[in-house]
């Protein structure tokens, strides 16, 4: 039998002839077209109409600026999505994530994950009792009374920085006709959280210059191998720096003062120096790891939140006016910002046992990414999740909850996670962002976005969306007195 013509024909049915001819990109990196917000690229559909997900999308610019419709597909059709290209399972629904986050044993945080040794033996990579003990050691200094004690210091730092706006470099500040144009990131948001963290920890002021180096290098060194070394070096540098401070503080503790100069208590490093685990004092390495975590968590996240909050509010003038008129609304604005566009994407977990979720069997030891972004936009929990609305009645914005759920049926956003590993800095970052913004709002008269200086979306007119990108610069105008 001669099957030759049939054979060639059959092969071309099975393989895209362009691929066979060596055209097209054989790799796993792809440029996707940028779509209007809320619409997705066509990635194909299954015969039953289910949209398909091309795993290359997750590394595209399109996804970073316009992630929400893709997350929606995942929530609706793939609540546990297996990304074979990156060997990761994504969990995208609020309720599922909450359940996983709460099961500290079944979904562990043991470090085969992202930190790659850069942050050291950090608390969030421990589980169970070990985690609780260490976390409480420093977590207790970031909540309640001890946090309240620090608010005057936060206010003082904010006021100092705003007073200093007049002396800013011309590259981030221009005055013209009674209007000042200012880049709020470099003028305030970048440095303010770092100053607060230094202050609260009891770090010497001169360490602040190193903070950005430590922060950027350590964050950049997580995972990606070409920058890993710099991350490790930065951590070593931090450890050496801290080790000497710790040795010193063990003998000479330092204190926090209120506005009148009265001692309110020891700073966190001094307190950690006298903390014990299992009857033994913490080693300087353990303290470094705790501090590394505060450095890592305390800078970029709060900065992103402040910028995202101002950017979103100023794009909704009615809401902005309401906040200006009523200081108490800043809490709601803070929480809605974190729900709508939080700066932290998700948290990795590894399932200790084989688990089955929504019919997908996940073998033990798999990397399961809890996608906080998606949880906060789950329409099963939040109505019209893509709308920024500080007055929404389904978002809980009272005292932060570990459970995610409140008695009155409202849910909190996922930006801080929930459960035993909920962000220990949540309370202090709340204070930083809200206290700082209140003072800013009083001082910046008639603040508005300087549209000319801000990047635009694909239509060339509207402002670029935040998506899951971090807002780098925020140019604003405000009236000088």
């Amino acid at each position, binding site marked *: *039998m*001669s*099957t*030759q013509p*049939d*054979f*060639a024909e*059959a*092969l071309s049915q*099975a*393989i895209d002839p362009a*691929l*066979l001819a*060596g055209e097209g990109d*054989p*790799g*796993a*990196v792809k440029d996707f077209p940028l779509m209007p917000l809320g619409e997705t690229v066509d990635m*194909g559909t*299954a*015969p039953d109409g289910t949209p*398909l997900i*091309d*795993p290359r999308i997750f590394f595209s610019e399109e996804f970073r600026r316009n992630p929400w419709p893709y997350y929606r597909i995942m929530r609706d059709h793939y609540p546990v999505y*297996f*990304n*074979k*290209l990156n*060997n990761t399972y994504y969990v995208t629904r609020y309720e599922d994530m909450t359940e996983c986050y709460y099961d500290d044993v079944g979904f562990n945080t043991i*470090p*085969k994950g*992202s930190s790659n*040794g850069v942050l*050291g*033996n950090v608390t969030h990579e421990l589980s169970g009792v070990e985690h609780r003990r260490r976390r409480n050691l420093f977590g207790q200094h970031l909540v309640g009374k001890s946090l309240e004690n620090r608010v005057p210091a936060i206010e003082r730092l904010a006021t100092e920085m705003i007073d200093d706006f007049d002396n800013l470099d011309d590259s981030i500040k221009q005055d013209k006709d009674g209007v000042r144009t200012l880049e709020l990131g470099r003028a305030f948001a970048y440095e303010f959280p770092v100053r607060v963290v230094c202050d609260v920890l009891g770090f010497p002021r001169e360490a602040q*210059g*190193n903070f*950005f*180096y430590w922060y*950027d*290098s350590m964050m*950049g060194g997580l*995972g*990606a*191998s*070409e920058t*890993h*070394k710099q991350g490790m070096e*930065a951590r*070593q*540098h931090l450890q*050496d720096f801290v*080790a*000497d*401070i710790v040795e*010193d503080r063990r003998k000479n503790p330092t204190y926090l003062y209120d506005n009148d100069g009265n001692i309110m208590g020891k700073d966190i490093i001094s307190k950690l120096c006298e903390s014990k685990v299992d009857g033994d004092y913490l*080693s300087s390495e353990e303290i470094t790891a705790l501090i590394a975590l505060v450095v890592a968590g305390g800078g970029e996240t709060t900065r992103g939140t402040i910028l995202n909050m101002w950017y979103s509010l100023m794009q909704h003038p009615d809401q902005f006016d309401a906040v200006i008129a009523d200081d108490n609304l800043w809490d709601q604005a803070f929480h809605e910002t974190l729900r709508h566009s939080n700066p932290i994407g998700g948290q990795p977990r*590894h399932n200790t046992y084989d688990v089955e979720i929504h019919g997908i069997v996940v073998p*033990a*030891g798999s990397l399961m990414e809890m996608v906080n972004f998606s949880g906060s936009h789950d329409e099963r929990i939040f109505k019209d999740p893509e709308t920024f609305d500080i007055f929404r009645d389904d978002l809980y914005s009272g005292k932060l909850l570990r459970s995610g759920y409140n008695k009155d049926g409202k849910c909190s956003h996922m930006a801080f996670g929930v459960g035993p590993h909920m962000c220990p800095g949540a309370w202090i970052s709340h204070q930083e962002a809200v206290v700082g913004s209140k003072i800013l709002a009083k001082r910046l008269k008639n603040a508005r976005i300087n549209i000319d200086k801000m990047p635009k979306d694909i239509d060339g007119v509207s402002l670029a969306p935040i998506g899951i990108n971090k807002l780098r610069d925020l140019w604003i105008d405000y009236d000088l007195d």
Partner: protein
Amino acid sequence: MSTKRPPVKILGNAKPSKSRTGVPEYIRTGTNEDYRTYEVYQRERVHENTEKIRPVQLISPAFVQNPYPILETLRENYPCYRDWLGNSYWITRYNDVTSIFTDEGNFETRSKLWFYRMEGHGRDLRGELPVLTAFERAFDAHVGPVTEAIVADLKAKGAADLALDFAARLPMELLARALDLPVEDFARFVELFWRMQRGYDWEARDEQSGKLAMAELFEMVRPLLKTRRNQPGEDMISAIAGLDLPDGPATAEDVVVTLLEMDHETLHGALANMWFLLLTHPDEMSKVTNDRRLTNFAYLETLRHSTPVLWKKRFARHEVERFGRLLPIGGLIYCAAAGANRDPRQFKNPDQFIVGRKDLCQREPRGHYRADGLPAGVALGLGSPSKHPALPEDRPRSLYAITRDTAVTASNILLNALPDLRLKPGAEPTLRSLRLGEMHTCWNLPVVF
């Protein structure tokens, strides 16, 4: 706001020294710094400089076209490379790769069906003796006639693309005959089989297409299985139908899943790559034309030099310490045969294609991919080295032997029929994968004769 390293402040008892990289480092004189918990110790060993490679290179088009330079970087610098982007580890040295392939206790092989997320939709019956016997019988019986038919077609056409007209076609025709498919189903079978084979990996559209193809193959096989259960023949479907299985009689799904796991890649890829290498290395080609016994060696050297299946995935069954690392439970390990086969620790001038090279095992390996004290090319489609004798009396030859003999026989027939075979003038064939993770082979090999 610079990320540049600030000047180092010297505090307390720390003294700076200059490291090789020019970055100051501390010599600590404290006493409690020597103590390391196991975990910290592990982290420090993991703390290696992997600056010579970026993870995104492992999914780049350049890597897909030619993975060898990047695999060499891994093999010579990072023998157990942690790929953060792909959440996996890469093993690239010969002894390391083979130690994983022969260690089923620690490392798990997940089937293509698992990657399809279709566990339970059929049984892989490749290991059943009657199936292997039928496979051996069919391939031995048909390789001659099928190759001659292909050669006749080539001669009639007057020109040929050996990659598609010969290397791609031969395995499919042999497989169709081993299944004893009706002639009119052949073209459809080829299409469905190919779609099924290409669908289990990461590409979503192909996965859909593959699932649909499998569904259609089930229906194609179902009536055949039913008929042959009553009137068995010599073919593989009859052999599967006649199996006495613990979980009940074989189904059409079992036949298709067996085909899925069996695949065609080693035969197809090795034939295409061998002819590519011979035609582009005239000296080696003349060795083979002068002495037909060397075709066998050319085939073995091809599997070493340019293996069509570049790597296979294994998963750690439990936490296991290997290669200086603690591999976590569930960890994905890419075992790169393409890296191992060019390991200079095993093969002299590993990038050279040398028919009859002296440091390559020239028969089927036993044990850890070695025989006669020599390493064999790691060719993944052929499975672990056989524990049975090379010429067993009570069972068929190994898959390794059947595939090798088929490729060698077919190549010799081709060479005898077309003695003046040479590359079409001006042609510049290359090896490449159609897409990341797929067979690395020659897709276009125009020849004249």
